[in-house]
């Protein structure tokens, strides 16, 4: 009889699964973990200092200038928003398609989404000239007339898209964790631990009633989250597509951005999963080579989609006959910032081609390195879109250059500090693999594993 490669390795019993996953939350962290956390917090400190200086002194500290009104802050914002997409895709869309392999990575992917959106959300606030007034972008009743926001501005759509996305992601993530919180609660020996996780588990008792409601809510939320995968990045792309700037003003942006987001999301997913596996060896049985292989295939596919988009931009520039478009695309490839364009093409289109080979898809080092390149490439993709379009537009007299400053790098790398700090803390305090979802897909109880097969 043919049968699939098991989704969970190591012939786990249900108790093993509970023990393995809860151990991360229950045991004192290893020195290796502490070292990782210290590193993340160091980066986070840089982020705090850099952003503090910018808020205190002025945006002029960054490389952003005239005519490049948006630069690394927006690039990094779009980058992090894009990262988030893989999580929702894995947890919601694959859930609806009943892809069982998703179960063991869904939680972490979703955590990645939440933290990425949190990190991303800071950037639009911190990139404005007067961040202390950024709340004016929210349409709230006020005594200024009342003065409303400009609903025609894509930035307002952005506010709604990102905040909706953040809300739904957090709720979906939280609801999924409720049965697992109950497991942690039930295993807890410390009274405070019991109380905190008890509170978080919302009085979960594991009755059929509970499960019935839970599954219903989870499916509804999955249904709710699914369009967001498409909508959020489409709307983020409107920030660019709605403007009149050559290089921004294009209709391909929504699908192009979504494909890119999924691409970058899976890239980041691979990065984190390989790190997770390296830091916590027991997790290898849950996040198996099969998972990584599947994700690498998605990277390959979406990588080619973005490659197609890059190509179509050339075509449209030629086909449109608009001299500004034509100049813009040539300037991207051959102008003074061409390094960013070719970094993008190399990292996003060329390097993932290595995943045509099964061996490469299943090599941890290869996939780790490729995933890093994908991250770099996708950051540069947004850089290419944002900066190279702005720096040379309609009137040649306005043309300018973009120069990075220390603060650009500080904000970018510092944001990884924020993200990683949140992620590492998550690994310690929340069940990082869905116990409730993994157990049903393990082979316990039927088939009896390989040796049970005569």
């Amino acid at each position, binding site marked *: 009889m043919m049968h699939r490669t098991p989704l969970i390795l190591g012939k786990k019993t249900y108790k093993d699964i509970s023990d393995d996953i809860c151990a991360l939350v229950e045991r004192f962290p290893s020195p290796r973990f502490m070292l990782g956390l210290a590193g993340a917090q160091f980066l986070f400190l840089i982020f705090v200092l850099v952003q503090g200086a910018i808020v205190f002194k002025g945006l002029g500290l960054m490389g952003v*200038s005239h005519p490049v009104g*948006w630069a690394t802050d927006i690039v990094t914002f779009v980058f992090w928003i894009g990262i988030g997409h893989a999580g929702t895709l894995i947890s919601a869309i694959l859930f609806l398609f009943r892809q069982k392999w998703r179960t063991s990575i869904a939680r972490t992917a979703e955590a990645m989404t939440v933290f990425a959106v949190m990190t991303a959300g800071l950037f639009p606030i911190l990139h*404005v*000239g007067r961040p202390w*007034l950024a709340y004016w972008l929210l349409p709230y009743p006020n005594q200024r007339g009342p003065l409303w926001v400009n609903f025609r501005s894509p930035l307002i759509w952005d506010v709604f898209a990102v905040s909706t996305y953040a809300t739904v992601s957090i709720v979906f993530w939280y609801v999924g964790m409720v049965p697992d919180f109950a497991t942690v609660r039930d295993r807890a020996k410390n009274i405070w631990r019991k109380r905190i996780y008890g509170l978080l588990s919302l009085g979960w008792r594991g009755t059929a009633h509970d499960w019935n409601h839970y599954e219903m809510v989870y499916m509804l939320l999955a249904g709710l989250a699914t369009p967001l995968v498409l909508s959020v990045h489409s709307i983020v792309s409107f920030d660019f597509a709605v*403007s009149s700037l050559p290089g921004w003003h294009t209709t391909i942006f929504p699908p192009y951005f979504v494909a890119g987001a999924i691409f970058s999301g899976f890239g980041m997913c691979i990065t984190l999963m390989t790190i997770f596996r390296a830091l916590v060896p027991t997790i290898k049985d849950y996040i198996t080579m099969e998972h990584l292989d599947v994700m690498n295939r998605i990277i390959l596919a979406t990588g080619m989609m973005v490659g197609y988009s890059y190509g179509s931009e050339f075509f449209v520039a030629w086909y449109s006959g608009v*001299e500004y478009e034509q100049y813009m695309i040539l300037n991207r490839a051959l102008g003074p910032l061409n390094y960013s364009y070719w970094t993008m093409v190399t990292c996003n289109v060329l390097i993932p081609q290595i995943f045509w080979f099964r061996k490469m898809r299943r090599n941890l080092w290869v996939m780790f390195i490729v995933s890093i390149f994908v991250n770099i490439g996708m950051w540069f993709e947004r850089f290419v879109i944002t900066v190279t379009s702005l720096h040379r537009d309609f*009137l040649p*007299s306005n043309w300018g250059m973009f120069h990075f400053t220390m603060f650009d790098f500080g904000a970018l790398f510092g944001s990884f500090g924020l993200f990683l700090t949140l992620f590492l803390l998550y690994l310690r305090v929340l069940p990082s693999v869905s116990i409730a979802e993994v157990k049903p897909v393990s082979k316990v109880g039927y088939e009896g594993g390989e040796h049970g097969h005569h």
Partner: protein
Amino acid sequence: MENINDLKPQPKYWMSLEQWTQDPEFLKMAENEFLSSPLSSEDGKDGWARREFLKLMGASLALTTFGCVRRPAEKIIPYAKRPVEVVPGIPDYYASSYFDGAEGLGIVVQTREGRPIKIEGNTEHPANEGGMSARAHAHILKLYDPDRATGPLKNLQNEKKTNNQTVNITWDKLDQEVVEQLKKGKVAFLTATIASPATKELIQSFASQVGGKTYEMDEIPYEAVREGQKLSYGDDVVPQYRIDKAKYILAVNNDFIGTWLTPVAFQKMFSKTRNPDENMSKLTVVESLLSLTGSNADERFRIKPSQTLDFLMGLAYQLNNVMKVGGATANADILSALKEYAQVDARLGLKEGTIARIAEEIAHHRGESLVLSGGMTTGGKDAVAIQVVTNLINSILGNEGTTVLAGAPLNTARGSYKQVSDLMKAIKDKSVETLIIYGVNPTYALPEASGFQEALRNVPVVIYAGDRKDETGFQADYIPTVHHELENWGDLETSQGVFSLQQPTIQPLYDTRSFQDSLLAWAKGLGKKSARLGSENWHEYLKSYWKSEIYPKVSKAGTFDNFWVDSLKSGVVNLAKKDSSHRSFKAASFSTFKKRDAVPEMELVLYPTVGLRSGELANVSWMQEFPDPVTKLVWDNYFTFSIGDAKKLKLSQGRMVSVKVNGQTIEGPAHIQPGQAEGVVGLAVGYGRTRGGKVCDGVGINAFNLAQPDGDQLLTAGFKAEVTPLSKRYDLATTQGHNTMEGRQIVVEETLAQFMKKPGGQIHHPKMMTMWSEHKYPGRKWAMTIDLNKCTGCSACLTACQSENNIPTVGKKYVLQGREMHWLRIDRYYTGEPEDAGVVNQPIVCMHCDNAPCETVCPVAATTHSDEGTNDMIYNRCVGTRYCSNNCPYKVRRFNWFSYTDVKQPLNLAMNPEVTVRNRGVMEKCTFCIHRIKFEESQAKMHDRELKDGDVKTACQESCPTNAIIFGNINDPNSEVAKRFKQPMMYDLLEELNTKPSVRYHTKVRNAAQIKSHGKEEHNT
């Protein structure tokens, strides 16, 4: 010790053992009222005892208050509006005068609550007719320069006059010491050209009273013009060049539009000849560097500065010997002198027959053409010869008496290096005991090679009437710190018979005193009371001068008091008579000339810039951040190289070069200038100040120091230069990112022939359609037209806008990042082959688009559309997303990257209270001077009338010397702007974007056979 109980007598109450024991020392002390002396201590160690201190304090307090009586009331009369007193919120306008060293302008000073905030042109002044120069605008910021000295200074010089410690001194003390010194006699004056007739008389009579001599010098020398006139016609004058009467203008290494003599007046006249019709003038420029004049040329040729004389001789040869135009043909001397210039085209690198063709064209316009030549770039040994040949050509062409008029010459450029060298000789002969310097900064503006700085050290006492301890001030013994011109009375005679007054518009900010008052005080101290020297003060003197010298010449003036008030009001008294001079050329002078300048392979020339000129405004940040109209570089001077030379020397922009010239080696950055002649290196003067103030010190290289004395002449050009490229690089900050139009329709140029056939025929109009209904403008709709054909690119509007709208400067570091804040910028594009580039200029303001891309994208509705068509910026709503700037195709928006409003005191006084200063983190841009619109609207409403066309003038429009900018209500069909807006030669910038701008451009019309290429491809209709 004795038993203390044995001692006697014992007081009942005692406070120390000493008292109880009746210690003799204690008893002695107790006799005093206080235990320690309230007066100075006995031993004299404590020099400032309390009581003495209080006594002095009280006395000085009393004395200070005593000294603080109000200045005697000196009535000044507002220009157009006559408030009883200063009305808060209402600006007052005072007619006044400005003299920049060579050009005199009639100005109107706008004051708010007693402080001047802006200088505008006086439309009634015949010289500039309301036109302004960028420097004249920037003059106001010098008033508020924080580096000005706040009171009289005395330098305690050592023997060598190098180690100087500066102390404050009171005016009384200074006067006393100066008078003592003046009693020794042998007084010399070194001044700039004094264009104020009353001041001139005052200095003269003071000098004659104390037995002194006066010397005049100009930092930017024009002495060759006078010298040439003297030799050619026997008149020591600078004639009036009536460009407005010329149909053909030939400028040979002469930047009359940018920097030569009186550029504002010249531009005014030039623009009058530039209407694109059959009377349109043609401007042919032959030059070495690319000047502002060259960038306006219809046709332009490149020669080296040292070849200027050859070119002019060649032209004279063609006109005189070949074509036999005019009356000079018969003179044998001239005929033979010109003979050797028969075939100079090839030698000058011009196409064969070029000079003959120019001669042909110019001869066509006999009596209505004008040849101008000379300037710093031809300040070589041939400088005077060049003027003489130019005069010859003008005489041959019959221009003398029509476009060159000497009957009422310009009252400028009297200074010469000869006078400086005379002064140095006098110092050497020990016949100068006291040197009084006023209006010039010779230590800076004269090269060390002249020996002036050394000579100054040998003058026993130097008095420098400047406004700070600058380069010359450092070498002086006394600095009787002078008022800024806006704090002082004065007058001005721009050309013979055209008088204007200068009135103070603010109480002096500091403890300064006008130079004229100083002279009067010293005259008083010396007991000289003859003539007007006995006047109470300078104001009295001035009034008396006008009463006796000018008033009698005016017919129908009424009483003097009325005349005085009227003159103050209008700012100008025009007594110029119709100039019908006609002089004949003195042929005898001609044959003596031989070309003296060699033609080195690489020659260095010095040139003045439009922004800094001789550097007197170098400490005004507006002028340092003033994009040079040609290079668009700021905050530096640089060696300019032609493209050919740059290739040869393997130079790139900003590469450091070492230039060896006249035995000096200077390092500086290279700027590669399209359109510059090969074999020439240019370097601008006005930079490299060392003691001018915090803004200008150390910016650039002092090019004046490269000038070379040659007998009685100071050479400024024709130096053999050896250039060595260095490996270092230097960042040159520019405000313009790219210099060609890449074939895009940005500036549309047409030839005059094309224009006459079909105006605007070269404009490509895309087919536009829209799904949306358009904005309704039921009342007024504001719009602007900019005439690119009239615009010379002089950039006066840019500084006018800066002054009007409180626009900050950001410094070189941030200009490098493109963060300059100018609301109005002038884009300069090169056309044609880079080696022989043409230039077009395009002022860019906010277009106030009907379909404004910025408005839709602002998330907080901080930039909105008004029902009068303006695109308004609401600063306090702006959160600074900068989306508007990204979406603006014209990129006219500027962002406050840092807090730019915390300016140093008293620079804040220059702020226009009508215009909000912008916070950090907000976007700003041109507002169409909305505050002026609103002010005029409320004025109209108050007087219950409609707004008339021309009531509202934007700051840029007001300052434009060529009237290229027209602003008004386009819904009024009779308004100037409405009439122009729909004309076929008007076009929208980036029309294909359907932004529907409220600013339209008039095509640039060239009176030439063809237009130079605009980039890769051309639009054809």
